[in-house]
């Protein structure tokens, strides 16, 4: 087990390094200089580039990034908030915390609502409840996040005035409602669909029939015997869910005017603030990769049938 975890951690670090290299190359592939404006003279640009070390050869710059990241130095912003350490922008101005809070809420909601919905649909298979849930979840995975966010905003904030239009820094519980619903809706539906299929699979297994023959009550059968085994596909899906929630946060944070990391990432890509792009990409990727790691380890812990060392087919 320890060997497996170590191997996975090493792999994750390798992927992060790769992402750094790719991001660095992509950033530098954008033609022109980040300091290029209509007013600036070539001398000014050269001066500014020298100040931030952009005149050095690419491999030196890249090596500096990697060296500094290892000791936790994320550099300073070039444009968005000139001179401010990127670490402060991301972690101390509440951007990271805000996105994490939003994402965590969405993830929890998606799991807590999606799984029971899937169980209910499987339990009442063929009845009108199942039919209703199937229609809901099928439509749910076809509605883009930004459409849902916009519709919720118009109906509940503008017309009914139940929730604030600008969620801002999410000061109260009320301001969480609409962003979290928009962010989690797709995944709630997807998890419910996945759960239904996997629950139906589990119900048809022999051990369930045996338990039934021995007189176990139906609800215990579903909740105790079938649920445990049908959770595995859902757990494996949680990694992609997190990645998707971060993606969705770009849209949701723009729509509800939340000053989170997602919104900031889009802005800094458009304004070509190299250190901020690099830091945001690495932080967000690290988050996703870390979640994938945890999911993989949990997955192997939950399902004893999966041997840790065996080669995958």
């Amino acid at each position, binding site marked *: 087990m320890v060997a497996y975890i170590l191997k996975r951690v090493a792999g994750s670090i390798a992927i992060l390094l790769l992402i750094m290299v790719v991001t660095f190359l992509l950033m530098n592939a954008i033609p022109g200089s980040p300091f290029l404006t209509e007013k600036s003279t070539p001398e000014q640009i050269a001066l500014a580039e020298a100040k931030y070390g952009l005149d050095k050869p690419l491999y030196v710059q890249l090596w500096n990034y990697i060296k500094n990241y290892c000791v936790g130095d994320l550099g300073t912003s070039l444009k968005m908030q000139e001179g401010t350490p990127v670490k402060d922008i991301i972690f101390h101005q509440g951007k990271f915390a805000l996105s994490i809070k939003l994402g965590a809420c969405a993830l929890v909601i998606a799991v807590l609502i999606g799984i029971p919905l899937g169980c209910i649909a499987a339990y009442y298979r063929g009845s009108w409840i199942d039919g209703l849930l199937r229609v809901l979840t099928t439509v749910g995975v076809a509605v883009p996040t930004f*459409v849902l966010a916009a519709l919720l905003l118009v109906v509940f904030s503008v017309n009914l005035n139940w929730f604030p239009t600008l969620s801002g820094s999410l000061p109260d519980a009320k301001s969480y409602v609409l962003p979290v619903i928009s962010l989690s809706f797709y995944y709630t539906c997807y998890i419910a669909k996945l759960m239904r299929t996997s629950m139906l699979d589990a119900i048809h297994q022999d051990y369930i029939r045996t338990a039934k023959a021995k007189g176990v009550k139906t609800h215990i059968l579903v909740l105790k015997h079938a649920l445990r085994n049908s959770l595995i596909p859902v757990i494996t899906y949680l990694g992609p869910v997190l990645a998707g929630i971060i993606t969705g946060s770009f849209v949701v944070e723009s729509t509800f005017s939340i000053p989170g990391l997602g919104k900031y990432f889009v802005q800094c890509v458009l304004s070509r603030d190299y250190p901020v792009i690099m830091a945001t990409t690495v932080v967000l990727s690290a988050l996703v990769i870390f979640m994938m790691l945890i999911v993989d380890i949990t997955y192997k812990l939950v399902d004893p049938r999966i041997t840790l060392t065996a080669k995958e087919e």
Partner: protein
Amino acid sequence: MKEPFAKLSPFHVNPDSILETFGLKEDDFASASGEEKESMVEMHKSISYWQDALRRFRANTVSMVALFVFLLCLVFAFIGPMLIPYDYSEQYRSSQKLGPMEYSKNEETIRALSKNVEAFYATGLRPGSLTALSKGNYVISYKGKTYAFTLEKALDKSVIVMQSDAEDPLRLVKESNIKDGVYTDYTAIAYTETAAEDATVLKLRTYVFPHVFGTDSQGRDIMARTMYGARVSIIIGVVAALIVLVIGSLYGAISGLCGGPVDFVMMRIVELIYSIPEVLIVLLLQVVLKDPLQAWFQSGTSGFVKAMSDLGAGIVSIFITFAVLYWVTMARIIRGQVLQLKKQEYVTAATALGASNTRIIAKHLLPNCIGPLVITTCLQIPSAIFLESFLSFLGLGVSAPMASLGSLCSDALETITLYPYRLVFPAVILTIIVLTLNLVGDGLRDALDPRLKK
């Protein structure tokens, strides 16, 4: 003789009594004649894999309905623009910010007039920033006759009315002279039947076409834009899915067929790409590719470059993104399928009989991979449409005056509190397209995947 013998052994049974008990005749155990044998053979028409799949797909009501609705969307997107007189990029200056089925004041006047005249041409319905007809030669074709005339000065706020049975069929009416659909005063236009070479063709109309979905702030017809956007979105989805199909299936097939160290290395690469949070890279790619693509468009002269530059940098970079990052799922599925098939007995048998690799691939592997290929490609289309709309929503996909469903939604969001319907139409079309494609894909999976056959 029989009786005592039966008593002797309890196991001895009289054959006659058995026949009697079960109601059988003596000749029931005779061997069957040729005729009888033939009547026992049931002949079924052999059904091919595709016929079987088609039959199963047809039996699936939900998928059939979804397919029908998707075909309607295709008609809307590809045939619709030919049926309406508005173009996605034309701006109608007098018809800005109209609601669904609303007419501007100007259109209202002409609409009332249109009910009382045969045909007309209204300068007020012209698109573009100039609503006046500049001076010059014009030609009108109506009911097989040609009317050519010259305007000595620019024509503004006027309607050319056609009254083909009158002595002066072409009549120039000032808009101020129209009251409740009737024109009170007009000047006849002198015409000849031969058109000058530089004459501009004017198309007469008999009715004012409504702005079914309304117009936007620049006076562009939203239905025309939605049709165009749907077309762009569907094309992006299909092309991206085809790119994924080609790259993913080739990569997966090579990896699966070669096996060993080649497979190991290729699959590590797939895992690497798989674990990169792709949207972060996609956003960067979109920004990075914009300028190089523009430069490429300007430098190249070949047909391919021209076609690409018509699409625009936004769309081409979406294709590149798909080619770089999104083929991994397809590659994994195909590799798995190939690995599984390689071990099948009939493939071993074919190898033992001396079949070449080409023959095995063409006759055994490919036909068995078609099911997963079709299903994955079909389900890739909605996900590509999703990604494109997401990027356009963030302002990175297609750029104005081009439109996609995502960019239309994004434009609509700016004015959503005042004009919510501008979001509703493209959003509903987008949702319907994605929903129906998902359902068709599910139906195809049920129809093509024999493992689900029960």
